């Protein structure tokens, strides 16, 4: 790293850390129903929304009703989007006359946006109308994020409350989250992004004349759309001269802001946040990384405030920061030392394949670890073209279960499940009944925590196994050898953990990935969510156990180190064999020179 990269990285983290406390305490106020500086404007809106939709804001829910409301709401969201995607050709705001999605792709896309995954097996600028992008997808970016945060808040209440079955009202939590947190930050962020050059308009795509025309060989098609082949079975092509190109337009900034803030990650364009209209300058890049980490980071402080000991939150944040910075360091190292097979050809030895120049090496790599440590999944460089160990970093961050900052809400509640496992294991070692935040950890809590942390991993391993024996799944690989396995593993890991980024060479718009992917996203989102709510329900009913001499202090550095080790050990035990066959074999192949 040169001194500029050090400087921008350090300034970035200083800004991030400076925002954790103000935003974290603001969110705590919002969810505890206290007045905030936005209340004079938003409280009346909130009342109107409850009146129209028939929400009784004082009507608190037990865990089953809370989970039921989450599932019901998500079902409605899914059905709404699925129908919209199938009928987008009939709907307004479609100046490019794009056709409807196939049902398999619509299913995959609808599940993807509802589960906060934003896996995209379609090319945004070609397949989605403005109406779909704005009304269909952007709204899911808000409410799927709000759903995750609401669940996390309910889980925190489970720790805080004593001898009650009630965890709050999902409709109120979701509404307040959207109105007070997501919308105001998005409006400011979107405007800031426009200042850097992110577009925001409803114009038809623009055509410009090229200064120097270009040409390409286009395969000739017969009437049925099949390629015509000559006698030697080679496709017949015709040379096409291109004198003008079409530049896509659209309401990008409004979607870009919430896409990062809600750790959604679904790009307006195929190139996602690498596209100059989504991410035009180094500053817009840093702002987008900040938006990705902002809410997951600040929620640790919210957690601290609500449980009455902010050190508990800082400790979790410390663990997240430590692993994130470590991964960033490794990625910087391997990408800066480049690909020896390319260097051998006489090229400067850094890896610029799949990176845009303006972000710089640190700006690309910081984005990569932020987007995969959280479940965002937006990309500003192509992960498929990272060096083998470089590619293993985002893959590993996803496989750890999206806890290194993690998805909005989901990152915190999954991290809490890990904390419970860590408390339990250390309790076993010293022979004491494990407690966390004054609540006894018993069989039910352990079962639920294990469900939370292992569901996605098991789904990934089983589906990757099935993929390897499915010809269609194997044929989708775009690179040969070990790298192909990495592509498949990455795709299924990304969907099961609701990340949404890809080793994008993989041709994902085939039935196998559309259908099994929908399954992976559904299981990976809702099984942990329901399990953690079930745990919160049982925690809320327990009485408070005051800390005694035998209580493990969970707000001190030794516990942070212990928690880090537990996370790394669980991750390594689950995935080392698969990683050894993919990225590690490829790394050795690369060093061996063939």
């Amino acid at each position, binding site marked *: 790293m040169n001194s500029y990269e050090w400087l921008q990285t350090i300034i970035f983290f200083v800004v991030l850390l400076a925002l954790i406390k103000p935003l974290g305490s603001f969110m705590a106020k919002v969810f505890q129903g206290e007045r905030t500086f936005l209340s004079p404007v938003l409280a009346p809106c909130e009342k109107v929304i409850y009146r129209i939709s028939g929400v009784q804001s004082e009507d608190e829910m037990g865990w089953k009703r809370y989970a039921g409301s989450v599932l019901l709401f998500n079902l409605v969201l899914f059905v709404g989007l699925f129908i919209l995607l199938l009928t987008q050709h009939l709907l307004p705001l479609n100046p490019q006359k794009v056709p409807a999605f196939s049902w398999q792709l619509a299913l995959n896309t609808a599940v993807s946006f509802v589960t906060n995954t934003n896996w995209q097996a379609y090319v945004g600028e070609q397949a989605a109308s403005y109406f779909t992008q704005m009304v269909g997808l952007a709204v899911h970016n808000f409410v799927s994020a709000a759903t995750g945060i609401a669940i996390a808040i309910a889980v925190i209440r489970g720790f805080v409350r004593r001898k009650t079955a009630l965890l709050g009202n999902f409709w109120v939590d979701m509404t307040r989250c959207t109105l007070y947190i997501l919308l105001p930050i998005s409006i400011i962020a979107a405007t800031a992004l426009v200042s850097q050059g992110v577009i925001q308009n409803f114009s038809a795509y623009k055509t410009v004349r090229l200064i120097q025309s270009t040409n390409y060989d286009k395969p000739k098609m017969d009437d049925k759309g099949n390629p015509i082949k000559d006698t030697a079975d080679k496709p017949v092509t015709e040379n096409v001269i291109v004198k003008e190109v079409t530049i896509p337009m659209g309401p990008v900034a409004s979607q870009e802001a919430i896409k990062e803030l809600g750790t959604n990650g679904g790009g307006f364009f195929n190139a996602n946040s690498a596209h100059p209209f989504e991410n035009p300058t180094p500053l817009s890049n840093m702002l987008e990384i900040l938006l990705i980490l902002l809410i997951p980071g600040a929620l640790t402080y919210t957690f601290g405030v609500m449980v009455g000991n902010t050190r508990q939150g800082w400790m979790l944040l410390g663990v997240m920061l430590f692993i994130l910075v470590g991964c960033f360091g490794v990625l910087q190292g391997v990408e800066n030392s480049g690909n020896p097979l390319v260097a051998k050809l006489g090229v400067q030895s850094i890896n610029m394949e799949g990176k845009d120049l303006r972000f710089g090496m640190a700006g690309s790599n910081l984005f990569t670890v932020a987007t995969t440590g959280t479940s965002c999944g937006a990309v500003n460089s192509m992960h498929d073209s990272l060096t083998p160990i470089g590619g293993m970093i985002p893959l590993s961050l996803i496989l750890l279960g999206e806890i290194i900052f993690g998805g909005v809400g989901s990152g915190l509640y999954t991290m809490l499940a890990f904390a419970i496992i860590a408390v339990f294991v250390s309790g076993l070692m010293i022979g004491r009944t494990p407690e966390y935040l004054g609540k006894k950890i018993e069989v039910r809590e352990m079962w639920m925590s294990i469900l939370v942390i292992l569901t996605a991993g098991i789904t990934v391993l089983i589906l990757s196994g099935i993929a390897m024996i499915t010809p269609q799944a194997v044929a989708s690989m775009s690179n040969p050898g070990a*790298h192909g396995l990495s592509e498949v593993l990455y795709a299924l890991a990304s969907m099961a953990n609701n990340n949404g980024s890809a080793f994008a060479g993989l041709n994902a718009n085939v039935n196998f990935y559309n259908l099994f992917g929908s399954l992976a996203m559904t299981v990976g989102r809702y099984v942990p969510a329901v399990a953690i709510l079930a745990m919160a329900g049982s925690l809320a009913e327990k009485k408070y156990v005051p800390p005694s001499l035998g209580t493990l202090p969970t707000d001190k550095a030794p516990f942070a180190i212990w928690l880090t080790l537990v996370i790394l050990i669980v991750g390594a035990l689950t995935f080392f064999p698969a990683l050894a066959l993919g990225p590690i074999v490829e790394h050795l192949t690369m060093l061996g020179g063939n």
Partner: protein
Amino acid sequence: MKDIKPAILLFIIFTIICGGIYPAVVTGLAYAIFPKQATGSFITDNSGKEIGSTLISHPFSDPKYFWPRPSATSDFGNNPMASGGSNAGPTNPDYLKTVGDRIKVLRDTGVTGQVPADLVQASASGLDPHISPESALLQVQRVAKSRGVSEDVLKKVVAKTTEERQFGFLGQPRVNVLVLNLELDRLSP
């Protein structure tokens, strides 16, 4: 099942707020404060006709122009309707051959020594408007010969169009290829 009503109605309400009001507010703010950026940062000629966006690269392969970074967009390079990278893995033989071919093209124009990575490795967006100053200087000899202007003049133009790090520390120095080539055409048509 008293929660069915809020589920459906909140979906509709938030679709209106997040899908309608929110983008409309952002569009209003964008047009009021940053109209040029909101509509794509286009460069226009004297008659007001749009030549291209400073953010989206144009394809150039003529020796008299500076060339942009390689682009892996489908159909033809720098196709704005098909943004994306090559997604080639680092050990893929086809990819290594492609890089080798690009180096050969450069060597044929008289380039010697180490080639900057950005000039032979494809960008992420396929529309990267910039090259590094090193990659621009590497092309000066070819462009000068083809246009019959002195290398010193071209080096000055490159230096003039080089964008420094934002605020002095963010990103890296870069040259906008479209802006540079338009400047060349203005100086020596």
